[in-house]
């Protein structure tokens, strides 16, 4: 049998189209293993893997939700690294899951195409991490007494930051 002739496509630096799926599976599994207690970690890992294999099942968001809900089992503490990582990972899984939905696994993905979603992720993450640090500082076990309800404060603050970010980006 003859060898198939292949067309060569050049569009800058390309990575395999399966990369968003692999990244989703890797990040989801790693986060589940390091931050979730058993047997919930296995459930989150299974969801991450299912999401990578069949993105249309939206299991990646299931994994993100499981990771986020694990935060409920932890006592709020500004010195604990896990809430910050959870915030970053949950948001990243949303971005990667969306990419995995549209990029064909057998195709290629231009690296430049990742810049805009990652920039948006970074723009949201920087203020959000700062707000989370504040919220954890004020609502944690070492929080100063006599302050307004920490939960309400946090929601309002986070909503304000989100609104500012949204408005800033909309103006561009």
């Amino acid at each position, binding site marked *: 049998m*003859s060898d198939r*002739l292949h*067309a060569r496509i050049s*569009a800058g630096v390309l990575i395999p189209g399966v990369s968003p799926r692999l990244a989703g599976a890797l990040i989801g599994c790693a986060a589940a293993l390091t931050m979730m207690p058993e047997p919930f970690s296995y459930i989150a890992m299974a969801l991450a893997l299912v999401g990578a294999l069949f993105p249309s099942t939206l299991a990646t*968001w299931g994994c993100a939700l499981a990771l986020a809900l694990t935060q409920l089992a932890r006592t709020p503490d500004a010195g604990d690294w896990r809430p910050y990582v959870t915030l970053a990972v949950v948001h990243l899984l*949303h971005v990667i899951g969306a990419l995995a939905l549209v990029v064909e696994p057998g195709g*290629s993905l231009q690296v430049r195409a990742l*810049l805009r979603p990652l920039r948006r992720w970074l723009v*949201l*993450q920087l203020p959000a991490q700062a707000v989370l640090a504040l919220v954890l500082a004020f609502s944690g076990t070492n929080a100063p007494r006599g302050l307004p309800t920490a939960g309400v404060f946090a929601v309002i603050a986070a909503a304000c930051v989100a609104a500012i970010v949204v408005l800033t980006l909309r103006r561009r």
Partner: protein
Amino acid sequence: MRWRRSAAPAAGAVCAIVLAGAALTFGRADVAVLAVVLFAAVVLGSRVRRDDRIVMATLTQVDEVSGPVSSAEVHAAVTADPDVDLVLLRITALGFESQSVAVAPPANVTIEVPLAHSGEQEIAAVELRGVAGEAAAISDASARASVRTVVEPMATGVPFLPLPARLRGLAGGHQSSRPGDGGEFRDIHPFAAGDRLRRIDWKATARLARRPGDLFVRRTNATSDADVAIVFDDADDVGEAVVEWTLGDPTLSGRTSLDVARDAAWSLASAYLEAGDAVSFQVLSRTRGAVPRGGGGRQLERLKAAIAQTSPHPRLLSRARTPLVAPGALVVLVSSFLERDAVRLAALWRAAGHRVLAIDALPRLNSGGLNRRQLLALRVVLGLRDERLHELRAIGVDVLAWDSAHTELRAVLRTLATPRRA
């Protein structure tokens, strides 16, 4: 271009609502931050709701394909509205091989397509879809943009040209049997009215004259040109790889019968035209693409274009038409002889007194990958084809397999070009 929402924003929003509910239920501000961030990401991603976002690709071929080349380069310039994050390109090369690439607009994509076949072909086609936001909106596939090109066949040198039984005209590059000018020595002949005085051979006259006043002239043969009618059978196009005959995938087929046929037709046409002959070209399945008899440089260009633009036209129900050829012309019938039409026509031309040269355009076959049934079917097909070739030889048609070794081709052409008694 129609845009539709994807499931990503909905999934993100559901997660955000669940987290917000949990945060309120358990009074956890840190979880509420997670919910707000997810919600903000969803809002950011799906903030644009316009349906008139434009995504487009412009295809240009870098170089015109001139002569036989190994590959062609096509540039696709992808542009889109600023809020389109990603453009999904589906690139189809040679009509079969499909690849998808996701790029960020504006982008320049270069597609290098290997060209394995001659003739007119679609080298690359692009369909694209736009993705806006965090995959919040996806457009429907755009109209297909494609680039077509004509790849010229490759000419093989033909050192020996088979000629028809009768030549015509008093100009050309071939030795005629008639006395005239331009050819080689013919004979010494008594002077006759109309002979030029400078043709008198005085030595021969001194030797041969019996009476005073006897003069002898030295005669030469005239040169004449041949009428050559190239008839192209475009009924099928099968490749070296027999296993691909049913699919006809040009990226897997290897050299096909039409590639061989085009090369043969072009090699012979250019060789005959170079020798000063008149060449016509006709296609069996249709009248379009025929080139009437002629010679010279412009005829060469016309023939090149006509041969390069031939494409397969299966004759499922219709019979092959019978092209008209000039009286006494050499008919060069280029076919794979997988169908009977060509044999019927060759018999017709032989009966009319034409010399017919059958060019067998079937490439050397590769039967790898066939199962037992397919092998048996191939044996039957090739057996029937051999029978047709035997039939052709039996009615006096010269058969020449074009896809053979160069030395073998040269030897057979030499034999065929040797003058024979009619």
